[in-house]
């Protein structure tokens, strides 16, 4: 079986046209891979490009050069060059992402926000809601909130909805952008257990964790992103 995620020589810069076209290099020569059942944590100081790497892998940021190879349904897809519909297909079936902040959709209940990735894959709505309830219960989200749209939830509540949404599928690769940042100790432990369960299932995880306790508990390996920082190289 192929390695689920291989990143090779990826470079990214931003050109700010509104500020006289200045070019901001973000990362250069990013190369690493994540194996099945492994949790790799991106390390390094703020602003070094950790979140940017996750966003490139998920397709929210374009890349200037390099390859992002994902094993998707038995063949390799280079997300750096894939057409939009191919990216969407990979997101639906193979690549999950827990972002730092929940993007709320007006009027959609927390339960349905969580169930949506399963429904998108053709799972029956009732089954998906059942699975969503289990996850929300596990993450200690008060039951009276389940039928409400998460727009008015607290930061920690929104984050738990977001985690449940990211963990509900059996996607082979999961990207985690500070999933525990606004959680209390109890819920941090729940998330650590959920990550351990994903690893046991053979899921490849790549994440950013600022909380040292969580990082030490989940990381198999820490990848120092400063090594890819062009600013560092110039200094």
């Amino acid at each position, binding site marked *: 079986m192929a390695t689920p995620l291989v990143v090779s020589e990826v470079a990214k810069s931003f050109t700010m046209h509104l500020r006289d076209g200045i070019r901001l290099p973000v990362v250069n020569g990013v190369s690493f891979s994540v194996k099945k059942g492994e949790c790799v944590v991106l390390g390094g100081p703020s602003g070094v490009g950790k979140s940017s790497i996750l*966003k490139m892998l998920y397709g929210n940021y374009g890349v200037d050069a390099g390859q992002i190879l994902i094993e998707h349904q038995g063949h390799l897809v280079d997300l750096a060059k894939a057409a939009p*519909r191919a990216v969407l297909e990979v997101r639906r079936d193979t690549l999950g992402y827990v972002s730092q902040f929940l993007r709320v959709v007006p009027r959609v209940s927390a339960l349905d926000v969580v169930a949506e990735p399963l429904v998108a894959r053709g799972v029956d709505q009732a089954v998906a809601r059942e699975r969503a309830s289990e996850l929300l219960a596990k993450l200690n989200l008060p039951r009276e909130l389940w039928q409400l749209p998460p727009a008015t939830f607290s930061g920690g509540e929104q984050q738990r909805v977001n985690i449940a949404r990211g963990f509900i599928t059996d996607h082979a690769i999961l990207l985690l952008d500070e999933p525990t940042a606004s959680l209390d100790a109890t819920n941090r432990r729940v998330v650590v257990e959920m990550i351990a369960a994903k690893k046991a299932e053979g899921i490849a995880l790549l994440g950013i964790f600022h909380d040292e306790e969580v990082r030490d508990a989940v990381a198999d390996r820490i990848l120092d992103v400063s090594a890819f920082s062009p600013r560092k190289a110039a200094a």
Partner: protein
Amino acid sequence: MTQTPLLKVNDVSKFYGSRIGCRNVSFELWPGEVLAIVGESGSGKTTLLSCLSTRLMPSSGIVEYHMRDGQYRDLARMGEAERRFLMRTDWGFVHQNPADGLRMTVSAGANVGERLMAVGDRHYGNIRATAADWLRRVEIEEDRIDDQPRAFSGGMRQRLQIARNLVTSPRLVFMDEPTGGLDVSVQARLLDLVRGLVHDLGLSAIIVTHDLAVARLLSHRMMVMKDGLVIEQGLTDRVLDDPREPYTQLLVSSILQV
């Protein structure tokens, strides 16, 4: 993947005399895909939508549609009758102003039922039942079925227009600023409704909007137009999170944060 595009657009241009409406636009739309066309007033997005939906003839270029029989047909070479039939059955067109897409002086039920009759439905009871079902789906009380849209609020009219368009199970729906002119709370309800329907029915849609939040919520893919040209296109998330062109960066940075 054995899928084929639903719509193939090749080098479409439209000139109004010497003025450019839109120029050299090419793209493919796939089944189940929602494409947003964004840009400021006068950028050519409505002209392009009109060219795609045969409301205007392009000055040059080809628009091909994948018919239900599996053949691609050049829309410009279709007969008028055939084109009108396509518009009434396999396509929908949601206008910004519901009054342009509804018949304001016939009942809500008849507005929905008319499209069913166009596809050959003749049983009054069935038509009325289907119309009632669609009113429910767009959240209009069933007891309003005999009222004329003149008596409806703006948001209700827009929802009725959507029901009228979707009742024949079209495969492709064009929308021109579907939420323009509505209150934000009404907008949110409509967006949620459209989002759900597009997903449940597996529709393809082309949505013209100047509202990037609408594009983010509804579309998979996005095209940014300026001065009649498509200056940037790609996955909606990518265009909004990592805009490349100066004009797209300006648009994205001009969004007001709440």
